[in-house]
């Protein structure tokens, strides 16, 4: 039976240097639960090291977590990746790490905290997660798809780090699954402004606790999986995106 799921598919954790330190996996899941969010996409910049903890907490609290990542391409375009399980996102992380130069400077960019499910600090990621990989947009999208994930261009309405801002228009050879709108635009405005053949969805891009669930997409699905969300994006078999 199909039912509605409220999804915030772009949320950062304390691993992202630009996110609040109190965005621990535990705090995020509790906040999502309190806001009635059914599906949470954990998408830190160029890393997925807090996904395992988020998955563990999510199971305990009855929230679905999609293991994900926000990858920065060589063109400085932000791309979102979502998967069904921890393994493929870790494989993507391996590829990303091999193509991500530089070291983080905490004082300039912020701390990159790796946490466990009990809100304890396990360590600090030393890579320059805020930086760009040397992978082009097409290479990244192809890697995401070959690992069984969905590939989405992040916050296309923003000028910085967006597909449209950096590259002017959607490259003809790029096979994306959807386009994400930032919370800056309303549903009506986004529908008026963009007439792409790709589906639009919206998420909070939360860097602070109170932003979680502030901007969601509602999906009509049978259950939570990449296959079901993929069907909803394509409007297949009754699965669809409802008004966000």
């Amino acid at each position, binding site marked *: 039976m199909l039912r509605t799921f409220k999804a915030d598919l772009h949320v950062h954790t304390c691993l992202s240097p630009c996110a609040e330190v109190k965005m621990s996996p535990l705090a995020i899941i509790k906040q999502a639960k309190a806001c009635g969010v059914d599906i949470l996409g954990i998408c830190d910049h160029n890393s997925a090291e807090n996904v395992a903890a988020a998955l563990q907490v999510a199971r305990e609290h009855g929230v679905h977590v999609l293991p994900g990542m926000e990858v920065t391409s060589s*063109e*400085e375009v932000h791309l979102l990746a979502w998967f069904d399980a921890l393994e493929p996102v870790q494989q993507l992380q391996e590829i990303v790490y091999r193509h991500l130069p530089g070291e983080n400077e905490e004082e300039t960019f912020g701390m990159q905290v790796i946490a466990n499910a009990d809100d304890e600090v396990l360590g600090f990621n030393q890579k320059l997660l805020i930086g760009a990989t040397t992978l*082009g*947009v097409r290479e990244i999208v192809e890697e995401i798809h070959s690992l069984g994930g969905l590939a989405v261009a992040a916050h296309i309405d923003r*000028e910085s780090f967006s597909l*449209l*801002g*950096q*590259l*002017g*228009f959607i*490259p003809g050879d790029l096979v994306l699954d959807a386009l994400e709108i930032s919370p800056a635009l309303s549903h009506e405005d986004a529908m008026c402004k963009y007439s792409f053949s790709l589906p639009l969805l919206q998420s909070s891009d939360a860097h602070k606790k109170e932003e979680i669930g502030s901007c969601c997409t509602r999906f009509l699905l049978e259950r939570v999986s990449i296959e079901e969300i993929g069907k909803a994006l394509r409007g297949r078999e009754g699965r669809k995106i409802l008004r966000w």
Partner: protein
Amino acid sequence: METIMTLTEVVERLGLRVVTPAGSGDSKVTGGYTGDLLSDVMANSKAGNLWITMQTHQNILAVAKLKDLAGIVLVNDRQPNEETMRKADEEQVTILSTGESAFSISGRLYRLLARP
């Protein structure tokens, strides 16, 4: 006021390397535009401008074509990938390159085109 030069003259005077000679060297360089955000270049560059950028994605060719730019200068010795090279031939867009930074080559182009 600016001096109008042909692309070939500008290439010689600035010591640029020609990566894809597809476009016309006789086209007039009306000025320059420097930027890596293609949305900005689409909005603000003018026909005949020489575009200085470090962006190498193949979308640069469509932008150059759309805005009728004189050519593209890639800075810091950045090289376009094979696909961009192939497309440049197809689209008849001249790609040039330099080891200089965007700041330095923009300054030199400005001095070259500005009347004393």
